[in-house]
């Protein structure tokens, strides 16, 4: 099902939470809402699901406005971060709850619940109490229960944030498999940029209640709309300069570009800068050892440069070094003042 949000504004207790949200998701897509805590991601999910009324704006499913529909008639289901499994029911009753609400008979409920349990790889655990399951298993039950509604839109609110990294990867794979199998239009809220890049068709970056950029993973990473978006995907080096006649010029680096004339900042990710030791204008001032890789901070030319290298014990603080910018990976951000 296509989902569209048009000019959504939401306030909670007279405080503006969401401003002018426009979002379009094609049927069967999986998109991520990415942003720091408190930027309004969960509020947007609740608004789409009908738990919060928007001040203005429209929500459309398959071109039909659904603002007037109460939450239980929308076919939009949320899996919350805290899972919210019903403590007064066992696993099977939890999963079959949406079916029971629709008046589905007991046998069919049992059959469907067994199928769903199998789908999330929890065969035979239907009769367990939810207090008898581990974190990862609870996550799967919550997912299965949401799928039991046969949702038009599946909304996931940081579903894996309480799991450790191995389990998260398992759950991501499971989610991707299920998404491929069922093709449900899905929005996943996350604050983990890697997770978003890994699994989404498109990513919407939210900052302070606004969507600042909505693009596919590669575009977002390679052509961020501004420095805030770029920063969200990790630290970067910014070099101020100017484009004149198709050439970006600065004290540290110059290269050809197709951008128009004007002031720009060239952004280089730490992996887009190479280090050569021995001599040069830069001095190593900090080494962060991270196992296979190390982050090196250099100073020189009035700049501080962060780069990532394969760990090398010969590097020492105070060493002189030169840097080489991989200009094919440079990203030019327009006309921003220094930050």
């Amino acid at each position, binding site marked *: 099902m296509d989902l569209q949000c048009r000019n959504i504004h939401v306030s909670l*207790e007279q405080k503006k939470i969401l401003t002018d949200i426009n979002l379009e998701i094609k049927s069967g897509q999986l998109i991520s809402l990415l942003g720091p805590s408190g930027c309004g991601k969960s509020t947007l999910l*609740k608004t789409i*699901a*009908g*738990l919060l009324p928007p001040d203005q704006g429209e929500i459309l499913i398959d071109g039909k406005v659904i603002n007037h529909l*109460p*939450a*239980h*008639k*929308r076919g*939009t*289901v*949320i899996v*919350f971060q*805290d899972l*919210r499994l*019903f*403590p*007064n029911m066992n696993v099977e009753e939890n999963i079959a*709850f*949406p079916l*029971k*609400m*629709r008046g589905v008979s007991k046998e069919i409920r049992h059959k469907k619940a067994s199928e769903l349990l199998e789908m999330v790889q929890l065969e035979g655990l239907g009769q367990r109490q939810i207090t008898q399951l581990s974190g990862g298993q609870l996550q799967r039950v919550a997912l299965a*229960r*949401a799928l*039991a*509604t046969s949702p038009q839109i599946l909304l996931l609110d940081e579903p894996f944030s309480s799991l450790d990294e191995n389990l998260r990867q398992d759950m991501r794979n499971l989610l991707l498999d299920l998404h491929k199998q069922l093709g449900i239009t899905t929005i996943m809220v996350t604050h983990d940029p890697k997770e978003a890049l890994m699994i989404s068709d498109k990513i919407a970056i939210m900052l302070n209640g606004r969507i600042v950029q909505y693009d596919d993973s590669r575009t977002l990473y390679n052509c961020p709309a501004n420095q805030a978006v770029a920063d969200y995907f990790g630290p970067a080096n910014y070099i101020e300069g100017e484009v004149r006649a198709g050439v970006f010029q600065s004290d540290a680096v110059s290269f050809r570009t197709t951008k128009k004339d004007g002031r720009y900042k060239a952004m280089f990710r730490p992996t887009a800068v190479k280090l050569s030791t021995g001599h040069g204008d830069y001095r190593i001032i900090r080494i962060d050892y991270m196992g296979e890789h190390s982050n090196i901070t250099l100073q020189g030319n009035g700049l501080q440069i962060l780069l990532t290298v394969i760990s090398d014990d010969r590097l020492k603080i105070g060493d002189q070094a030169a840097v080489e910018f991989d200009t094919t990976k440079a990203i030019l951000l327009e006309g921003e003042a220094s930050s």
Partner: protein
Amino acid sequence: MNTRGIIVGKILLACFALTVLIPIVVILVWSFAARWPWPILLPHSFSLRGLQEIFGGYSGALQVLGSSIVLSLIVALLAVLIGTMTARSLVFYNFYGKKLIELGTILPIIIPSTVFAMGVHVLFIRFGLADNVVGVIIVHLICALPYTIKIMTDVTAAFGGKLEEQASVLGASPLQILKEITLPCLLPGIISSACMAYIISFSQYFLTLIIGGGNVKTFAVMMVPYLQSGDRTIASAYSLVFICSALLVFVIFEKTAKRFTKNGSNYFFV
């Protein structure tokens, strides 16, 4: 916990149990004692006078017990209903005068009932609520509500609205949410506050006497004169029936509540 801690814990538990059980045993023995002068350890002689007083039919104790239980059940039901709804509005909504209402809900605990009884009495006479059952039910409610509201506010706050939100997005209508989620989750609080309200109403003597004006006879009203007059055999027999009937009602509360919600866990009794 180490063994010493466990032993200390067990001793404490035994002390608590004994402080409750010893008086009950004394009452039990007294109910059947004819004479039990101090400092003799066991009664001189036994009699069935207490039993006859209550079950003999001439005192009307059983009828009063019956109507008293019904009256207190009505109070408990109303108190739970009002308490649950008040708690919900206090926890989930912000409205003008909320703090004032919160204060109002605990006022009957802060002000002794002997103090406000007079004022309530005057008011009830004016409204035609004095000397009848409705007035007594209302005044019992005034005493019971602070406790039910407090219990239900805590339970409602702990339960939160989160499971209701979840049920809603899973396709449950408001009525279905109430039946399947809200009531089962509030059940421990509902049972506790019903028991609390019941026992407050059932043991209310002074207010029943003032507002009921002698027309409304409850078990407590019947029992207290015996306690005061010093006829220990009859007073003990009344006390025993009082305790047993209250316990029985509590068990019925829990069984009934569970039947409606099919909740698997136990709160008070097996």
